[in-house]
């Protein structure tokens, strides 16, 4: 494809947008687009199948849960995770697209971290998969940075005044993962049992990890 982006983009400023109609039936529009791109030799259907399969079945919050559980049971690993998250996450086999550079931030009794992308939908795919709709919603994107405590309250999390809230707005290609607090009275659980408790919401910072899976959201 033509690399002549500068001249292509000049067009934007006097562009009247009339043709950017909302697809009346997105399912039909996308199906037509796929057929067209295949017919033009621009896309291979096997690649599309592999991409859908990867993000539906292989990449998701279970990856992040393994990272968190490892950090809870292995202090040396936790140290590496907090000092060089990209490398520590790669030790468990995760990395790449939308997680090329990672930072892990730790929740404690006195610090609560919350991750957002106010400008679009940046999210750490290798460890959490694709973002849920609420994360991409205008409501979450707009309010997380001005009223994080109110947002957390909507998720059922009331923070004491003496807890410091740190909001991480993903404006660059640095992706954030929250290391939640390990729930009390879980000393008897092994690493994989701990991983089963860790939720996506806790790793975004809108939830806590509960002692048992009941009562956990997502």
């Amino acid at each position, binding site marked *: 494809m033509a690399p002549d982006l500068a001249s292509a983009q000049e067009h934007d400023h006097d562009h009247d947008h009339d043709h950017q109609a909302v697809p009346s039936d997105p399912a039909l529009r996308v199906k037509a687009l796929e057929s067209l791109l295949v017919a033009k030799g621009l896309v291979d259907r096997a690649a599309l199948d592999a991409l859908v399969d990867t993000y539906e079945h292989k990449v998701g919050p279970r990856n992040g849960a393994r990272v968190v559980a490892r950090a809870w049971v292995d202090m040396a690993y936790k140290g590496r995770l907090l000092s060089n998250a990209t490398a520590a996450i790669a030790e468990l086999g995760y990395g790449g697209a939308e997680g090329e550079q990672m930072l892990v931030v730790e929740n404690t009794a006195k610090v609560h971290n919350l991750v957002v992308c106010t*400008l679009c939908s940046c999210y750490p795919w290798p460890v959490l998969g694709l973002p849920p709709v609420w994360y991409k919603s205008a409501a979450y994107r707009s309010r997380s940075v001005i009223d994080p405590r109110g947002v957390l309250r*909507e998720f059922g999390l009331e923070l004491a005044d003496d807890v410091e809230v740190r909001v991480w707005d993903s404006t660059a290609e640095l992706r954030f993962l929250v290391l939640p607090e390990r729930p009390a009275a879980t000393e008897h659980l092994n690493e994989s049992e701990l991983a089963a408790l860790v939720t996506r919401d806790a790793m975004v910072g809108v939830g806590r990890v509960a002692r048992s899976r009941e009562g956990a959201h997502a």
Partner: protein
Amino acid sequence: MNGIHDMGGMQDMGPIRPEKDEPVFHAAWEGRMFALDMAVDGGWPPLDAFRYQIELIPPADYLRMSYYEKWYTALTELMVKYGSLTREELDSGKSAGPAKKTGHVLRGAEVAPMIAAGWPATVEVKVDPQFRTGQRVRARSINPVSHTRLPRYARGKLGTIVQDHGVVVFPDASAQGLGQKPQHVYLVRFAMRELWGAEASPRDSVYISMWDDYLEPA
């Protein structure tokens, strides 16, 4: 561009609506749209150009359209701009012949390696940092008319550099095809009270990634 996508700090977007047991894709076409974009997009166009194209969706449409409808619009607009498709082909769904300029077509077996490699935004060139960790800085009060990752709510605000996360492609340039203009990116801590005034929590803060060109010494 001071657009609707730059939502940080807005308060009228309604409640956040998490969905229980949310599927990765809500309909098959969402998965296909995701995959089409990833397949066509693998390395082209720059991610920043794709984001910018989404930002060019008129605000009323931006708010009304679902996430993957925006992807449909952005991808097809970019492909028409670059000459990979004509608008007639898009409207009719009929190919007028093989694409003239076909770049590499992603094959099924190439999906896993592509995801594993990702698209690092970091650049292996030596560029001197303009700021240092611990330094007080002010986010510049600027209003770029094209793509930028400097959110409005931070402009003109004072913050502290907490970490330098390396030399990275500059999105404001990259989105317009003006090259990489690589420069340092820093995590900058902004106190809630600096961003939102005296009624904000004195303990809380927002961390935002900021490129050299977004900052000035305080």
